[in-house]
């Protein structure tokens, strides 16, 4: 889908090349993550693909076409582009922002409007609420969702993403990453993704390109990169204990226990007592008739006075979702100081739970 042939970029004659003789092939449907320290040439490489930067030497093919022979405006209209945090147009509404490329392509109004609705639904924002808002009225995470929706607007086959989740807090970032992986599963775009965070690279990529000083050091699947790092530099990036990094590769749904001990809030406290004694992790989940998570009960709660479970239960804090990586789930556990994480779907319905022990076992399986 995207081929880079001996691509070199020298900004000023006499300077060391920012990108040196790069050869790379990105297959259709792949998410190729360019990762490396700042100044390694990853952003330059990405921007050469849509000709925001012109290569000094070499040829880049997108979909078989030599990009230097295509009108750059036409080329870019067919490549989605997201940059870090902002880049949203502050004077335009959310709908207008998303409609940017369709409007450049002169789509009819009704088609644009339909597409905006569809995309807002896709990124999980209610069109009725968000359509007319301005970017400044949105949180960082919501703005980033709009950035993703905007780059998908004209359904381009290729997406370029420059640290799209860089400026977010860790919890929001993990959530958006999971959402984006879910979306990508449906849309199957060819993606070039730039990040300096190796953990993000392992989580998001189907291929990872490690770059250093303008050169491609290693280009492999995340699994191969972790198991057979090519040299010291790659080892330094992924860390010595690659089984720990594998936590980014495994998903919660691979090890989830789908038969959690549950009670309803109406049941007597004696019922929960039995369940707690039988429970491996010392927690019982309280759900309503729709399996929606309402609370948790731990042994200490039994000392409270009350006859019904609802009177003694606590807020469920340690929650994660099925798309999350084991690393995400583990950090939720560590943050809350608990040995378990409750897994819910997007409607807060309980899917199951995982324990610290399960994560440890998963680690040993891979070692």
């Amino acid at each position, binding site marked *: 889908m995207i081929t880079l042939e001996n691509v070199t970029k020298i900004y000023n004659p006499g300077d060391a090349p920012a990108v040196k003789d790069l050869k790379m092939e990105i297959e259709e449907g792949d998410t190729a993550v360019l990762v490396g320290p700042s100044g390694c040439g990853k952003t330059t490489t990405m921007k050469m693909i849509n000709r*925001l930067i012109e290569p000094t030497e070499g040829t880049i093919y997108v979909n078989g076409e030599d990009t230097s022979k295509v009108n750059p405006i036409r080329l*870019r209209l067919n490549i989605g582009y997201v940059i870090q945090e*902002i880049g949203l*147009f502050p004077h335009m509404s959310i709908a207008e922002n998303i409609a940017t490329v369709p409007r450049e392509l002169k789509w009819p109004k009704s088609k644009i409007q339909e597409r905006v609705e569809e995309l807002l639904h896709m990124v999980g924002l209610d069109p009725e609420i968000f359509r007319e808002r301005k970017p400044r009225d949105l949180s960082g995470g919501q703005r980033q969702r709009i950035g993703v929706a905007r780059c998908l607007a004209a359904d381009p086959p290729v997406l370029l993403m420059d640290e799209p989740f860089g400026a977010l807090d860790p919890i929001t970032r993990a959530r958006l990453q999971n959402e984006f992986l879910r979306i990508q599963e449906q849309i199957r775009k060819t993606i070039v993704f730039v990040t300096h965070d190796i953990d993000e690279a392992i989580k998001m990529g189907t291929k990872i390109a490690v770059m250093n000083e303008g050169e491609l050091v290693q280009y492999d699947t995340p699994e191969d990169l972790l198991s057979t790092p090519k040299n010291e530099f790659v080892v330094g990036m992924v860390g010595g204990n690659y089984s720990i990094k594998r936590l980014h590769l495994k998903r919660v749904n691979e090890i989830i226990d789908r038969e959690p001990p549950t009670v309803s809030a109406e049941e007597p406290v004696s019922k929960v007592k039995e369940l707690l004694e039988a429970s491996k992790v010392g927690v019982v989940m309280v759900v309503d008739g729709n399996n929606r998570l309402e609370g948790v009960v731990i042994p200490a709660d039994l000392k409270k006075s009350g006859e019904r479970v609802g009177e003694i239960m606590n807020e469920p804090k340690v929650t994660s979702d099925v798309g999350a990586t084991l690393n995400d789930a583990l950090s939720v556990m560590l943050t809350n100081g608990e040995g378990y994480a409750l897994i819910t779907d997007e409607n807060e319905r309980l899917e199951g739970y995982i324990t610290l022990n399960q994560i440890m076992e998963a680690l040993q399986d891979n070692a």
Partner: protein
Amino acid sequence: MLKKWGQRLFFSLILLAVFIGYPWYNVMNPADRTVARGLTPDGVILAAQQHITLWGVSLAAAIVVGVGFGILITRPRFRFLAPILVNIVNIGQTVPSLAVLAIFMGILGMGFRTAVFAIFLYSILSILRNTYAGIMGVAPDILEAARGMGMSPFRILLRIELPLALAVIMAGVRTASVVNVGAATLATFIAGGGLGTIIVTGLAVMRDQMFLTGAVMAASLAVLLDYLLSIVEAEVS
């Protein structure tokens, strides 16, 4: 919304009432024959018309030229012109407005046209400078996003740069407007007409009723026009 517009209408009407009411009263109640001869209804209306025309024509021309050149010197190809052009206009601005009028009288002769041209030149600066600053002030990552998504330079100018710079440009237009109303009172010295005529004549014959009429009209006109432009500014930004 309704309250906001009601308020705007109210203040505009008060300023308009001063602009019309004060000269009206003085024309109707002249203190002596000298004032009666100098302050005729036709004379006052003509002076006001000339003044508004001096202001309007020179400001419109200054907007076209100032915004035009302001845009031009932000284009990469012409950016080298920016310091040169801004400096020339800056120097022009430091010359007193009466001197500018005198210089152009020497070149173009007396009359209304010369006055319009001199005031126009004099008011370009703030519009040019603000257009330049407004466009250059658009965040680079916004421009890069626009470029990366496939907008052409012209479309970026039209849909991103100008809308985002509009508030700053409007502030420049307001400054120019105030400068223009003031400079137009001097047009009378080169036979350009305007409210300055009433002031200067009133001073010559030492009738405060007369020169105050011209002064209050010029002052209230400046405030009224600035107020109207502030409404435009608030509506576009």
